[in-house]
């Protein structure tokens, strides 16, 4: 318990996800493309690095989301997530 942990959880990326998807995302359930485990975004493992953010599955630790921000622009790679449909309210013009 005394070990420093170098990750936080998905609550920490609520802001950047809101900025991109224009809807609150942390309560959304998503499935890992590698192991199919379904978790809320709030419960995913978030690793912040100098160049961006890597979001991993708490079960198999595969990368589920990669977020790279530069200035006011953020690019989100969601190829590690299985989704049957876009989350509520996601803008369709992207």
């Amino acid at each position, binding site marked *: 318990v005394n070990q420093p942990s170098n990750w936080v959880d998905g609550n920490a990326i609520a802001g950047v996800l809101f900025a991109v998807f*224009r809807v*609150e995302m942390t309560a959304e359930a998503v499935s890992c493309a590698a192991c199919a485990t379904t978790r809320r975004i*709030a419960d995913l493992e978030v690793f912040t690095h100098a160049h961006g953010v890597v979001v991993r599955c708490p079960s198999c630790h595969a990368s589920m989301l990669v977020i790279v921000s530069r200035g006011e622009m953020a690019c989100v790679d969601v190829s590690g997530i299985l989704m049957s449909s876009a989350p509520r309210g996601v803008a369709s013009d*992207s």
Partner: protein
Amino acid sequence: VARAAVSRGLSWREATVADVVRETPRASSLIIDVPDWAGHRAGQHVDVRVTAADGYRAQRSYSIASAPEDEHVALTVERLPGGEVSPFLVDGISVGDPVELRGPLGGWFVWDQELGGPLLLVAGGSGIVPLRAILRHRVLCGSDVPVQLLYSARAVDEIIYREELRALEGADGLTILLALTRRWPADWTGRRGRFHQSYLDEVATSALERPLVYVCGPTGFVEAVADGLLDLGHDPDRIRTERFGGTSP
């Protein structure tokens, strides 16, 4: 799904520090005037962006300490050793200074009256901050759901909101159990040491009562407490967690 890119949407707001309250040697509350603040839910956070004189920008997430009913938005920030933003917010910011915020953020680690109870709130260190918003909201919205707060801090002088919690203790339906993990006075009657599973088993609201559980603190603390509660039979769908990294209290 391939790649989603870009966008506008959530904007940064210019706000002003209205007051700074020293909470502990390592933590301060910033009372902030946010023009046209549309309100928030207890448990939510904001992103804070600061810009240095040379134009360098850094942003971090901080939990909102105030209840939705409170007049100002309050953030309580703890100074992290080697931190880039928190030392400035704890020691370097003054009344009247500008600060940029975006939010409120987060739709999972929140409590509204409709969610009911009983509530089991477990805080490690500055993990008390969003739970304080929930405690205040519970009182100010007139809720009478039973609530138990388990709060672990390093030492007496590191207990954030100590006087406020002392004043709240004994209020209807509220139980507070404090643990000190590093130093304690000789006459300390609370827990000495961490919240081990056997302690949670002994004192925490039973899984049979199906409490709605909120655990907030450093990642290792939250992992240990959440795992302990799951082993004690708590429903994973009723445990909400927020981890902010760092070392355990």
